[in-house]
């Protein structure tokens, strides 16, 4: 019997070699593995062990469920045709699952199935085969994942396999992970005190939640020197965790702040130049967001291949549309209300309601989801930080917008006019600057930037008709905090607010955090009415 099998196997190898290596693995890999698994049920323990070795050399991860099932006595062969299944008890019968894909394959009576028996030698073989499939896989990513899993499993019996893998490992990063996995396993075993102490030190550099949990359980289970060491290292790890956590909060705060920055810049320059609080500013943000929505709808229906570039089309469009609305607002309403700031406040508030209601009538009151281009989705982990690409892009984008705006103000003629009007309207007018023209353009610029902010906003949250409302108080807070007409003060103010908000949230909850910030700013205005970076000299009263 045996020689025949070897001949057949050799024949098979020869055939697959003839067919060419590339074809053989792609086309026959599954059936090859399947036949090997089916072979597990046949012959003696020795035969089975050989089959396990063969499966391991095949190096296909798909074999793992079957091997694991074999280790837990859940792998059975059907008596009628010798096909091997993973089984689960279901009353008097067994539920069958395909050995490779794990798909359900009906039920079978107990007497129709035969368990593949194993002994301790086989168990060891299975473990090392599993280790070989994972820890010693050729694919470094798979090795890393496996090392991570072994760390979490803390299985003392895995130490041997880990040691083998460590000797073979060339990638230093994975080697470190493996050493940590070994340390975890050692801590969970009955190794000597000295070994465990060394292991505790090994865990130290890992410094994440897992390490903390492991150290805590070690500290609970041990006493004396080991206990002290574990407790000490644990507190060290907790410090590291707290630092990462703080960094994460700063990151969230910065990204929150940068969205706010986009929303606030326009608000601040209109307030600075014209002394007008534009309560409809939030609605410009909304208009930008809805522009994104509409453009994406059009692209989806008529030119889907453009989708990844949709934002580049939307950005100028949103700027222009929101800017045009802003200029119209200035020309038809606000112009008549100069010198009456309180009425302007109320009139623009009314217009914000009209815009909201108009959008609600056109698009419906529901929240709408705006698509994110593929290059903006996904995330990256840096140490303990989770960085999502859309937030990263928004931070970059808002800083770019900020830089552009600063250079417009500092380096262009229009910027010069704007600054002149901000500082002394009448004097600027006397020098021949057409202040109404500057006003209209400033308003358009501020609104346009708000439109762009809407595009950015649509990438991190749902779009709804009243999304702009929540921004107006925040915007004002920022302006009050950072100072009027001072872009750098505003940048600092925005980022501070974002970060403070995020830091207060875990301690006080989102709502109470917001209240605290509001109260803080109300108190802050008491002390420094003109903001953190106040203009000095005569400009203050101008």
């Amino acid at each position, binding site marked *: 019997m045996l020689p025949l099998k070897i001949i057949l196997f050799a024949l098979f190898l020869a055939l697959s070699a003839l067919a060419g290596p590339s074809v053989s693995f792609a086309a026959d890999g599954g059936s090859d593995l399947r036949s090997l698994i089916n072979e597990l049920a046949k012959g003696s323990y020795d035969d089975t062990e050989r089959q396990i070795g063969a499966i391991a050399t095949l190096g296909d991860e798909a074999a793992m469920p079957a091997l694991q099932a074999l280790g837990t006595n859940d792998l059975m062969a059907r008596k009628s045709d010798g096909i091997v299944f993973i089984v689960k008890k279901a009353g008097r019968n067994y539920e069958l699952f395909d050995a490779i894909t794990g798909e359900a394959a009906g039920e079978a009576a107990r007497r129709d199935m035969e368990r593949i028996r194993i002994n301790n030698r086989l168990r060891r073989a299975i473990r090392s085969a599993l280790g070989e499939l994972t820890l010693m896989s050729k694919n470094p990513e798979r090795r890393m994942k496996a090392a991570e899993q072994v760390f979490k499993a803390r299985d003392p019996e895995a130490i041997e396999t880990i040691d083998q893998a460590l000797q073979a490992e060339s990638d230093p990063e994975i080697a470190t992970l493996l050493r940590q996995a070994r340390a975890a396993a050692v801590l969970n075993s009955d190794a000597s005190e000295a070994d465990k102490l060394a292991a505790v030190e090994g865990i130290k550099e890992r410094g994440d939640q897992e390490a903390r949990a492991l150290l805590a359980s070690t500290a609970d289970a041990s006493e004396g020197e080991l206990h002290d060491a574990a407790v000490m290292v644990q507190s060290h790890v907790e410090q590291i965790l707290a630092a990462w956590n703080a960094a994460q909060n700063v990151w969230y705060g910065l990204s929150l702040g940068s969205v706010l920055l986009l929303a606030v810049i326009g608000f601040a320059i209109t307030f600075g130049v014209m002394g007008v609080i534009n309560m409809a500013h939030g609605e410009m943000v909304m208009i930008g967001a809805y522009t994104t929505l509409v453009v994406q709808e059009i692209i989806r229906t008529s030119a889907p291949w453009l989708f990844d570039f949709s934002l580049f089309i939307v950005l100028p469009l949103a700027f222009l549309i929101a800017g045009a609305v802003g200029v119209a607002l200035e020309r038809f309403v606000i112009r008549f209300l100069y010198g009456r700031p309180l009425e302007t406040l*109320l009139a623009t508030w009314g217009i914000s309601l009209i815009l909201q209601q108009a959008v609600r009538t056109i698009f419906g009151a529901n929240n709408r989801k705006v698509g994110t281009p593929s290059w903006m989705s996904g995330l990256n982990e840096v140490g303990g930080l989770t960085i999502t690409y859309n937030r990263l892009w928004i931070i970059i984008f808002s800083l770019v917008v900020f830089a552009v705006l600063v250079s417009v103000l500092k380096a262009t003629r229009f910027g010069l006019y704007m600054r002149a009007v901000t500082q002394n309207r009448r004097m600027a007018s006397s020098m021949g600057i057409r202040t109404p023209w500057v006003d209209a353009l400033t308003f358009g610029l501020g609104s346009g930037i708000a439109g762009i902010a809407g595009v950015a906003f649509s990438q991190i949250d749902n779009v709804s008709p009243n999304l702009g409302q929540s921004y107006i108080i925040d915007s004002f807070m920022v302006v009050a905090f950072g100072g009027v007409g001072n872009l750098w003060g505003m940048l600092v103010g925005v980022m501070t607010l974002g970060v403070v908000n995020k830091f207060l949230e875990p301690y006080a909850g989102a709502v109470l955090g917001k209240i605290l910030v509001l109260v803080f700013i*109300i108190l802050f205005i008491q002390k420094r009415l003109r903001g953190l970076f106040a203009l000095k000299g005569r400009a203050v009263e101008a």
Partner: protein
Amino acid sequence: MITSFFLRAFDGKALLFLAILAAFAIAIPAGNLLFPPDHALHVPIYVVSLLGKYMCYALLALSVDLVWGYCGILSLGHGAFFALGGYAMGMYLMRQIGVCGVYGNAELPDFMVFLNWKELPWYWYGFDAFPFAFLMVLVVSAVLAFIFGWFAFRSRVTGVYLSIITQAMTYALLLAFRRNDMRFCVNNGLTDFKDILSFSVQADGTRSALFFASVAAVAVGFVIARAVTRSKFGKVLIAVRDAESRTRFLGYRVEHYKLFVWVLSAMMAGVAGALYVPQVGIINPGEFAPANSIELVIWVAVGGRVTLVGAVLGAVLVNFAKTWFTGVFPELWLFALVGLFVAVTLFLPKGIVGTIAQGWSALRQRRRSVRAEAGIDEAPYSGEASMKHQAAE
């Protein structure tokens, strides 16, 4: 001296207004209580409650006019004082339910039993007594206004800055009252009231009495506001509004004047809220919404600021329009409100009453000058007619 202080409030126009109010206060409840339901003059009870609601709004508008029109403080957070007064009254009404509630717990309001709270939070103590609750209506609004005003006026926060931080104040309160652990029944608010002063809230008589009380409150508020604004104190307020620094240089403690009128106004708003709640039957955190506060500023702007009558008229007119519009074209109300407001700010900056008053005095002025030119003192109409006659010849 106090008598003379108040007597100054009564001149011809004020007496006319008060007389109209009094007629209103008597006619409406009488129409409801005296005539049978099928009589032509019968006033349905829902109309009584609706008008009562308008009267509360009118008092609220008066309080805003007092600070905005006469002192130049545009408050975008007066809804907060209104709502606080309302909550104080709502707490009293909740305690009055007593054993009539669904759970029949004499001590705890229903929602507390429902949410498994074992005992009354300390700040709910005393609200079973009406005098205490009424005192709290005044005190809570006044204390908040005092603290806020103390900080704001002392550090000379003015103009739009002040407006926005008043809005932030009401926004913060909105967020606070929506929190679970504040124990004000979260979003559903306080509702399902049964009795007030052991009269049923639902009964026609009680509702008429509440309406009467609301009109009386408007009258009292009007007299107080008018007395204050026509006194020397009121003149200083107007000076503060028009030239704050100059007033300060003249030696007046501007912040004290502002603080006094601010606290007074907040107390009036609180009373308005307290009268509003039993008539509407609910108070919830939504009353703190900044939009509400802005809306009430619009009433004053439409009616005409610096004319106390205008505030009352504006509140009633705008709310009447709101009731009508939301019944007929619900989706158009917002457009109408905003359109009205933008039109009023652009074309009638003095509001309805202010414009009429201006037109009236301009007319009288013109007549007087025409008479003076013609050298005629008597019978101006005949004089004009004869002039026209001469011109025609």
